[in-house]
């Protein structure tokens, strides 16, 4: 677990403040990309896609150690680190679907990977090296048949990412208190 006095540590507090700001930035870019998916594929309302959703296997990153009752600071940071890597990797599929917005998607991938490595470096500096597993799969949404399913897959990937970030920001704010 994190050292007891870390919450008062200036560097850790600076790390949390920067991570919060970085998270807000990424969240803004994910929302912008959701708008692009809505505009480009006319996929805007989640409730219209529940049926198709059942046939998709969209990557989602667990964050139960960032929420009550299982909240644990170091385990939460480890899940954030791992989840950001998976989501950054999975965005490769979205990039293929939206070539005209490749810059935005690439920036999002870079930012997510950056925030993940910032967490890793911070944990290393606290003497808690994180185990890093290579993200599985080539970044393509697994087991999708048609182009429509890929588009729906990207819709839910971004929605999962948005929720992941909402939970992450709540946890970071809690740690920063």
């Amino acid at each position, binding site marked *: 677990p994190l050292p007891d006095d870390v919450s008062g540590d200036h560097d850790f507090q600076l790390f949390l403040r920067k991570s919060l700001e970085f998270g*807000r930035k990424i969240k803004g870019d994910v929302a912008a990309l959701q708008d692009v998916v809505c505009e480009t594929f006319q996929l805007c309302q989640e409730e219209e896609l529940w049926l198709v959703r059942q046939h998709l296997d969209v990557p989602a990153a667990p964050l139960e150690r960032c929420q009550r009752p299982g909240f644990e600071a170091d385990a939460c940071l480890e899940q954030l680190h791992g989840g950001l890597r998976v989501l950054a990797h999975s965005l490769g599929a979205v990039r293929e679907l939206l070539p005209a917005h490749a810059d935005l998607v690439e920036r999002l991938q870079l930012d997510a990977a950056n*925030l993940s490595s910032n967490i890793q*470096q911070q944990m290393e500096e606290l003497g808690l090296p994180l185990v890093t597993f290579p993200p599985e799969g080539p970044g393509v949404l697994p087991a999708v048949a048609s182009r429509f399913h890929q588009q729906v897959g990207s819709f839910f990937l971004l929605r999962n990412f948005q929720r992941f970030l909402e939970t992450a920001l709540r946890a970071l704010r809690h740690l920063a208190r």
Partner: protein
Amino acid sequence: GCASLSVDSPIVLLGSAVSASCTVRAERCGGLQRAQIHIAWLLDSEPLAGRQQHGPAGTELSNLTLPHFNRSQARLWCLLQWNGTRQRVAMAELRAGYPPAKPSNLSCMLNLSDYGLTCQWARGADSLPTSVALKCATSRAQREAGAALTGCSPRDGRHHCTVPRRLLQLYRHMEIWVSARNALGTAESERLRIDPMDVAKLEPPALQSIEPLPGQPDCVSVGWRAARSSAHMELQCELRYRSPEEPAWALVPNISEAAQPALRLCGFLCGTRYRFQLRCRRPSPGAYWSEWSPGKEVTTQEKAPAAR
């Protein structure tokens, strides 16, 4: 060929010694006999005397030493007499100068439109061909392993270049420095330890509305918004205002992003027209101010006449 010229070092420190050797193979020099070979030297157009001797395997050899070579650039020629004419049979280009000067005054700015980090620096005059690169080390492991990567290289003698987003690590300190290398050595600038986000050049905020406050003739409400590209950021902003009669701006410093969407200010003269502008920067050392926002004007309320 007929002759070959070798130099111990074609690039030397200005004023130091240069040794050269010209080897002539008579059998390849148009029927010249070994006894007829007289090797001569020219430094550009200045004749020099070498020490000629027989070399191995039937060659003729001349050695030359320039004790204090102090031209920035020169051509060293090896010549023979052949059929009554002077023949240039081999040449080497010599250069002299100094190791690169230490680059200085390194500063960087992050452009929020593409998240490229543009750095600039001052460089001394280069006496020799010099390759310059901006080096970046993101993590401590990279720094300690000496595995810095080249962020960018300035083009044709310029003193700035831009590190692309993919080589940056945002929200984490990086070490950045300039490395200049020529044949005589390498010089490195001081290391800049920055988080690229702390040197972001922000786009100006927008003054959306300035309204007099009913019942408070000396107060106004200033409605403002940070630029979209910095909507998620911690900010330090300042507001300036003045009326046409006043030459100097009055300044309201240390306005944080939390003061959005509106700021309440008092202490204004009644019934007076004021012009307002706002600018923002990152709340970190070395941050750059945005440009001032476009100005917005308002006339404060007249004071209500006192009841008799």
